[in-house]
């Protein structure tokens, strides 16, 4: 059987069928065809309309607070004997990078004439971001969330409800993010006309991985000019980001994908250890497969049943990665590292003490990876600080009590 090949050498764009190398595509039931095809045939045209670009950037500036600062973390830099810049997505409205994509997709949905917005969420960050944008724009919002995650993430559930969203429990399967995604897809199947599904990561059928990466690419677009101002060069030596589905990494890597001098480092969640059976390190444990409408690396049993991953961070607790990342892994363009629950916790406490920034548990994995790398004094390292840690305080407090 022949493999589908990309038409160009660029890592940034999939081919016309949504393939990054051998990964991507749109493996969807016919019941979703109309919705997905409508999006596929129109997303680029809409995203390039001057009025869309203007509306998107105005909201990013005036509502989200962009550009997000690029901060030279001096004490952390000293510890690693190099220069480390933090891209402060944690300072965005709602506390993470997720809002960039939510604004883009909801604006796009409005231009498609959709009245009803649905989303899936794990830890609740993407759900909160989507509910926020829907409140802003006066749209009905339904967020699917695993029953277990609803119990674990009560403050974010309350936030979404206060914002006017209806939070629906996914009670099937393992009752977590994977199942919330299944339920959201089912909702979309049952509402073929009036509904847009805001997927929160660079996963799902084509065009989602490309579309979400484009909305998040504002992260690396800003990083380039911010670096130029601070260092005289637009290019860092390293970009480091955590990867669950991979949306903050896709955004942080995007405008450096075709700059071979820039090392891209993706950090996955190793849970209790990559081979412990309680891990979410998809690049290490996954095999090519199909999950949620695209071909990618998927954690699964020998029989092809999708397994439930484990990570202390709900945002990295996903058994797949986006097809772009699977391609970056397979081609060797990006280096994939992983950090355990414990390493992530230690890194979170360390960066909090050194820099006065409490990172999200997801981002803490990226910080933990610094210890596994060696840098030169004149390297320029950009680490995407994808979210703030307020939502993880309960976990952090529990860790502090344990260490007392």
């Amino acid at each position: 059987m022949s493999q589908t090949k990309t038409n160009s050498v660029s890592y940034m764009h999939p081919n016309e069928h949504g393939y990054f190398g051998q990964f991507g595509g749109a493996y969807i039931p016919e019941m979703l065809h109309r919705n997905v095809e409508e999006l596929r045939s129109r997303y680029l045209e809409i995203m390039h309309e001057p009025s869309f670009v203007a509306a998107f950037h105005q909201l990013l500036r005036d509502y989200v607070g962009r550009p997000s600062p690029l901060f030279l973390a001096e004490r952390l830099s000293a510890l690693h004997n190099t220069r480390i810049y933090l891209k402060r997505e944690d300072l965005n409205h709602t506390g993470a990078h997720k809002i960039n994509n939510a604004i883009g997709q909801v604006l796009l949905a409005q231009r498609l004439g959709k009245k009803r917005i649905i989303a899936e969420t794990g830890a609740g960050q993407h759900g909160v971001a989507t509910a926020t944008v829907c409140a802003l724009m006066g749209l009905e919002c339904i967020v699917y969330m695993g029953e277990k995650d609803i119990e674990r993430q009560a403050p974010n559930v309350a936030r979404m409800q206060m914002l006017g969203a209806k939070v629906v429990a996914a009670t099937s399967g393992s009752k977590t993010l994977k199942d919330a995604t299944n339920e959201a897809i089912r909702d979309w199947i049952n509402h073929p006309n009036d509904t847009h599904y805001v997927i929160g990561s660079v996963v799902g059928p084509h065009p989602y991985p490309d579309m979400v990466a484009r909305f998040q690419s504002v992260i690396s677009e800003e990083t380039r000019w911010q670096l130029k101002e601070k260092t005289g060069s637009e290019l860092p030596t390293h970009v480091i980001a955590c990867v669950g589905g991979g949306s903050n990494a896709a955004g942080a890597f995007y405008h450096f994908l075709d700059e071979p001098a820039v090392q891209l480092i993706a950090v996955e969640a190793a849970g209790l250890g990559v081979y412990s059976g309680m891990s979410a390190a998809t690049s290490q444990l996954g095999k090519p497969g199909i999950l949620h409408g695209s071909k990618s690396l998927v954690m699964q049993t020998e029989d092809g049943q999708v397994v439930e991953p484990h990570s202390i961070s709900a945002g990295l607790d996903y058994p797949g990665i986006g097809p772009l990342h699977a391609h970056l892994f397979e081609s060797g363009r990006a280096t994939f590292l992983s950090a355990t629950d414990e390493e992530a916790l230690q890194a979170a406490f360390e960066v909090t003490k050194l820099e006065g920034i409490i990172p999200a548990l997801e981002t803490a994995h990226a910080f933990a990876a610094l210890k596994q790398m060696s840098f030169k004094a004149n390297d320029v390292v950009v680490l995407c600080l994808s979210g703030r840690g307020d939502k993880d305080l309960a976990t952090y407090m529990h860790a502090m009590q344990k260490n007392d």
Partner: protein
Amino acid sequence: MTRIAQTFLNKPKQVLNVYCTAGYPQLNSTLTVMQALQQYGADLIELGMPYSDPLADGPVIQQSSSVALQNGMSIKVLFEQLKDCRKTIHIPIILMGYMNPILQYGFEAFCKKAAEVGVDGLILPDLPEYEFENMYGAVIKKYQLDFIFLITPETSEERIRKMDALSSGFLYAVSSSATTGKDKNFNEVNTYLQRLQAMQLKNPIMVGFGVKDKSTFTTACTYSNGAIIGSAYIQALGSSTDIAATTQQFLENILK
């Protein structure tokens, strides 16, 4: 002539296709269920291969899939169970399932083995027509398996004609854009089915999703060649202590 084509030649109207999940309600009940379906009047059997994330299915079928997986069902086990099925089952068998477990088994190995044990056709809802034409269709044809595409009321006429050209056996008309096991407004369904009938497609039309009893079966058959029942039968099996008796009663309620 294929077994499915022969079925529609012998009985062009009111064809009843019943869905069941392999390994449900018990791991080893697969063949018992199939034999009961054949004995009490099903014309075709759609045998679901359970998957952890069945996107196109509703809660009833997903629940039966979870139970079947807990029971230990897999494609390997299923082929072992079907090894001698043609000694007792004479009606067509269509395997329904999702791409991921099949890719892990090996797509070509899967088609080869399916043909060997006597399977007649495949329904793979997450195999879209682009991938079918690009890669997988040739393998399916090599092993002379029928491939059945789904169409919905949202599918354009041009696309229906394409699906009809690519399908063999029959076309699976989803009665509305919805997952399995939902109630439907059958007036809208009738308009849709009349439109399909007027298109004079090469394949017979089987209606699925929302068919659950005699009344919905009769309505679904008015403008089509037959209908597919899934969730309602799975529900009946779920509370059953005697598979043969439950199946007999279930099918009599629909056919008598």
